[in-house]
């Protein structure tokens, strides 16, 4: 009993296994890829700094970002998700990470960013500890592959100090 349907099934199974192997190999090669990201970000303006009714400090910012993410792209990269967080420690929390801005880079041609943007998400504290607080800006990236493992990394950028008084 060696019919053509059996041979077709056999061929399909082997083909699927090999395809999975090729994807795994492509993803494994990415692990040896060493990117060299260059980036800078500076807060240019604090638009509004106040205390919300619920008692949490809230800041909206404007900052400029320049980042060259071209080296993150390999042949197995579908897109890069890049975002900027403000990170600080206060009495209540050992770590506060708040996203301020994010962006999807679809391909290598659009991976050289030079932007001046307003914070997409406001910096909201859990409580009221932001007056005079030193905040670290961190650039994170999340490389999303065509198939395989996702890669995450980050880079410390500049620090900035919030004013000692609310702006309104």
């Amino acid at each position: 009993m060696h019919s053509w349907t059996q041979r077709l099934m056999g061929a399909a199974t082997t083909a699927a296994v090999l395809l999975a192997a090729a994807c795994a190999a492509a993803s494994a090669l990415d692990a040896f890829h060493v990117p060299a990201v260059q980036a800078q970000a500076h807060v240019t303006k604090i638009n509004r700094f106040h205390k919300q009714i619920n008692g949490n400090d809230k800041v909206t910012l404007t900052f400029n970002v320049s980042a060259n993410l071209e080296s993150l792209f390999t042949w197995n990269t579908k897109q890069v998700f890049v975002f900027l967080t403000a990170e600080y420690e206060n009495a209540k929390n050992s770590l506060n990470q708040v996203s301020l801005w994010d962006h999807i880079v679809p391909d290598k041609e659009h991976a050289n960013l030079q932007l001046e943007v307003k914070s997409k998400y406001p910096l909201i504290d859990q409580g009221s500890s932001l007056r005079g607080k030193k905040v670290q800006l961190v650039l994170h990236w999340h490389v999303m592959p065509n198939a395989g493992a996702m890669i995450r990394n980050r880079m410390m950028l500049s620090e900035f100090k919030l004013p000692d008084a609310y702006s309104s």
Partner: protein
Amino acid sequence: MDWQGQKRAEMLMQVLLVASAVAAFLAGYVRADFQFMLLVYAAGVVLTALVTVPNWPFFNRNPLKWLDAAEAERHPRPQVSAGAAAGGKKKSGKNK
């Protein structure tokens, strides 16, 4: 498809598939294009299926040589009794 043909078909299938996977991976890597790899591989798989799935004459070059009917009659099978036949049937049934 004869016995030799079956063996040949299976060998061909595996060799062709592995070869097309390797070729596709290298081609995709060199051109830094994941989609290109998938296209080359798909072409390889279709080609493999075309070569090994249908029952081509190529796989029927070593037909089984059955014993000629006249020849078989000249060497008759040994006669068996009814009781022994039942036992034989049982055995062959199990082995199926």
